[in-house]
């Protein structure tokens, strides 16, 4: 259950962003969770719900999107989706492949509500 530790890192990053942006209420935190990130989405959501009220308003929503694992072959440069965690290039059968997506938890965006008059970036 290391999801709590990841939520802690996530909330810390969001706090820094809100400070840089001059404050406001965080309405939504959008996150991508890779299939190889080692994160169970339900536990991640539960940890978020439990921990967010201490930092932001409990109204703050988590928008979570699961991302499949994508790899690129080091031999033939073929790019492909990893199915059933089998890390072999379907084109040339080599096992020398690099994961390029789906092995991380990524903070995608933060939506902030504020009362000041700075013109917003369309969401």
């Amino acid at each position, binding site marked *: 259950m290391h999801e709590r530790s990841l939520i802690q890192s996530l909330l810390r*990053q969001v706090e820094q962003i809100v400070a840089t942006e001059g404050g406001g209420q965080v309405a939504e935190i959008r996150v991508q969770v890779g299939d190889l*990130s080692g994160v169970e989405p339900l536990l991640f959501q539960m940890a978020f719900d439990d921990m967010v009220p201490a930092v932001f308003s409990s109204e703050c929503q988590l928008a979570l999107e699961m991302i499949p694992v994508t790899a690129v072959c080091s031999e033939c440069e073929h790019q492909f989706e990893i199915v059933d965690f089998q890390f072999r290039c379907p084109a040339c059968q080599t096992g020398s492949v690099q*994961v390029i997506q789906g092995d991380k938890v990524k903070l995608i965006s933060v939506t902030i509500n504020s009362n000041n008059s700075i013109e917003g970036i369309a969401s």
Partner: protein
Amino acid sequence: MNQRTIVVHRDVQADQKADAAAERERLGRRGTLVVNLLSSPGAGKTSLLEATARHFAGRRSMAVLVGDLETDRDARRLAPLVPVAQLTTGGACHLELPLVQRGLKALGDPVVDFLFIENVGNLVCPASHDLAEHLRVVLISTTEGDDKPGKYPKMFRTSQAMVITKLDLLPHVPFSVEAVTADAHLIQPQLKVLTNCALNGSGIASWCEFLEQQHQQQLAQYHEPAGNR
């Protein structure tokens, strides 16, 4: 009311990964190979370290940071052989870098050839945390299922070596070295596979030889003249 969406696209663990990379470089530059040992509880991490310490005694220096939820039992086993610090997580399921750094400090930040981190027995959470290791080794014992790699893909994908332990029990258990190797190689085709038995010492010499090779190969990058970098 104004609503703004700030686009970020950043790894949630980016800061921790940067800290780990810096620590890895600091230790690598002074000739320490950091080895993160991971497995289920009871696979034989402490026994492998005891056998490794006996093999390296007088020839190679090593220190151990040992992670457990509670107690200092593993540290007390290793203390007669090598400098060791116990890291107790107080119930947390994995080690994180600040805990490792605190352990190093407690040992007086020793300059050793090998720093072993015996992680908390768990094949899930520790896979997601970079502890500044140069080498990640997953242990699997013959008393476990040989179909385990597929169930814990991240652990086997992110490891460079798999050590099959308790080989002396092989005649008595339904475990196939070939099956576990094939399953692990689907996930990490470049995984180095070693077998040994810490109790009778078989395979310990080749495990230590592998560590020596890794020490040479992985730390070579820090010894290159500046112009070649």
